[in-house]
């Protein structure tokens, strides 16, 4: 896929939207205006943006507990997401899902997921659909370094490999799983190495660099689309904030985080690169910043003004109760 002006601008808009959306969430939680179990993606924006920039309408992503970034990058409506997090009827999931369950299957977003590793087989199944229905689509599973220790990871990658499914497994190695450093629980240097167990190709991308993620994801997705089977793509990244909003971060060396934040911020890196390459100019960036910031403010206002679901809705949407005649 060519990185046209429009696409570069879109990529910046996506990353800025994720950043601003989540900075707003943190603010809202701190103000006591929002509650629930919230995990923010701050610092990892280039991964979702880089991968999803390679995807289209008929492609699917399955996400994680840290799912806002994937949802935004896959085109889920930000106003709906904000309303969802406020628990309103106008939310993406009518207020029933919340942060860990934002989904929009029509947009190819199979859901954030509260169960570590659970999205991996789901994406595998979406890839099976694409293969059997010959849609030309690809399915991407996003998951963490921690999730690569779940049985679902192992079983799914093996299945995708023997069936040569159009799937891409994107492991977001952010160095931590909850309060545990990755190197305590993953004894190999690169999680990408684990692809060998399935005779699957692997790639490693700099997850703080949109352009590197975009390129490597492009290679993996092109292989999947053309019938070449699945790829494990490891994106080395970093979680700027705590595990959840409210995490005091006492377990993590301060200097480690500071180093990543000052030296490797994906938005700053992106801006520097596009400015120096002349892909975008300062005006472009500022225009996007402004648009995004207004969009988020509007989303908050609309969400706060929106109605809560009616108590009676607690029992709706459990079953479809519909039926398809053969």
């Amino acid at each position: 896929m060519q990185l046209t002006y429009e696409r570069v601008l879109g990529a910046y808009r996506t990353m800025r939207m994720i950043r601003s959306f989540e900075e707003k969430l943190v603010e809202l939680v701190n103000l006591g205006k929002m509650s629930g179990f919230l995990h923010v993606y701050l610092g990892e924006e280039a991964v979702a943006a880089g991968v999803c920039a390679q995807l289209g309408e008929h492609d699917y992503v399955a996400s994680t507990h840290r799912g806002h970034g994937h949802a935004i990058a896959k085109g889920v409506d930000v106003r709906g997401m904000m309303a969802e997090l406020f628990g309103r009827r106008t939310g993406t999931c009518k207020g029933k899902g919340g942060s860990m369950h934002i989904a929009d299957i029509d947009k190819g977003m199979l859901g954030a997921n509260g169960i570590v590793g659970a999205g991996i087989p789901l994406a595998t199944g979406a890839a099976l659909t694409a293969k059997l229905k010959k849609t030309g689509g690809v399915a991407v599973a996003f998951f963490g370094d921690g999730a690569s220790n779940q049985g679902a990871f192992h079983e799914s990658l093996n299945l995708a490999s023997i069936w040569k499914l159009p799937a891409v497994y994107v492991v977001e190695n952010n160095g931590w799983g909850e309060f545990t450093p990755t190197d305590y629980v993953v004894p190999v240097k690169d999680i990408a190495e684990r692809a060998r167990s399935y005779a699957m190709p692997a790639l490693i991308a700099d997850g703080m660099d949109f352009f590197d993620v975009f390129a490597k994801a492009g290679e993996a997705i092109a292989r999947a689309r053309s019938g070449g089977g699945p790829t494990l793509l490891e994106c080395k990244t970093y979680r700027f904030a705590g595990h959840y909003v409210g995490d005091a971060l006492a377990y993590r060396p301060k200097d480690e985080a500071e180093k990543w934040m000052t030296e490797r911020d994906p938005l700053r890196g992106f801006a520097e690169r596009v400015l120096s390459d002349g892909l975008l100019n300062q005006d472009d960036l500022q225009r996007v910043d402004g648009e995004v910031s207004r969009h988020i403010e509007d989303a908050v206002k609309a969400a706060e003004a929106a109605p809560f679901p009616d108590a009676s809705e607690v029992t709706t949407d459990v079953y479809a109760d519909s039926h398809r005649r053969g």
Partner: protein
Amino acid sequence: MSRELPTAFAIGEALRIALAGDPDVILMGEDVAGGGTRPAGTDEAGGILGATRGLIKEFGPERILDTPISEMALLGAAVGAAATGMRPVVELMFMDFLGVCFDPLLNQAAKFRYMFGGKARLPLTVRTVTGAGMHAAAQHSQSLYWITSGIPGLKTVIPSNAGDAKGLLLSAIRCDDPVIFCEPKQILFLSSEVPEGDYEIPIGKANLVRQGGDVSLVGMGATVNIALQAASQLAQEGIQADVLDLRSLQPLDEEAILTTLGKTGRLIVIDEATPRCGIASDVAALCVDKGFDLLNAPVKRVTAPFSPVPFSRVLEEAYLPTPQKVIDAVHELF
């Protein structure tokens, strides 16, 4: 023209009809195509119990999919495929194996529609063999349908004979919700009448298989036959029993249960599963809530004891409900 078939054949017939009628229907499981999804002609297996034998020849390796022994990926992928447009029918060899693939049912299939605000459809069927009676011991003999019945978002059905198996399975596959289709070991190789052609038995409706007026015997799966045998013997003593086959464990046909209770005032549930937190308790609890005014006697539950399933034939016989245990329970009510 009536014909008799073993339940396993009736299941194969339902699968064939569903596959022929809807290109989105696929089968996934261990050895369901015969092992290694090999070319047509080497389909001698068809699942460990043979229910899918021959389907690979007719429908080919794109629709009849052998999987590795990776039930978590199998179930999870089936959920993902169902959410994106397929209508997968999974064979989970024995229901005991739920232990290694519970999350895709508990937290994914059952909850997608609700969590996503009604914007998901999960047309998934899980066929799975349940129950004791083949000396297969504690890890291959459980009746765990109480677990799937207790999870909002799933439906669970269990046939008591070959003809019902065919019609219920067709309904399950065509249902837009995830359905667990239980195949009780004790009826899989029993033959009974199976209508030709395509027909459905609705999910959520019980079936009154015998009319009597003195006592209601409520069964499901293999215990329906036990109830019927008990009823014949009771008839000789002059006690006439209604026998209700639940067919669907979730939704539960509360109306049918209360109707038979209303006729007889005395009710016994017969369940092959263990007694705690089961279908039998739910039926009893329904009777003492909405059916309180209809009750003339305690509601008795004839179930397995609260133990794992033993191996030895003599212990397994002691473990399972029998017509005599039902008759003894009935006598307690008069």
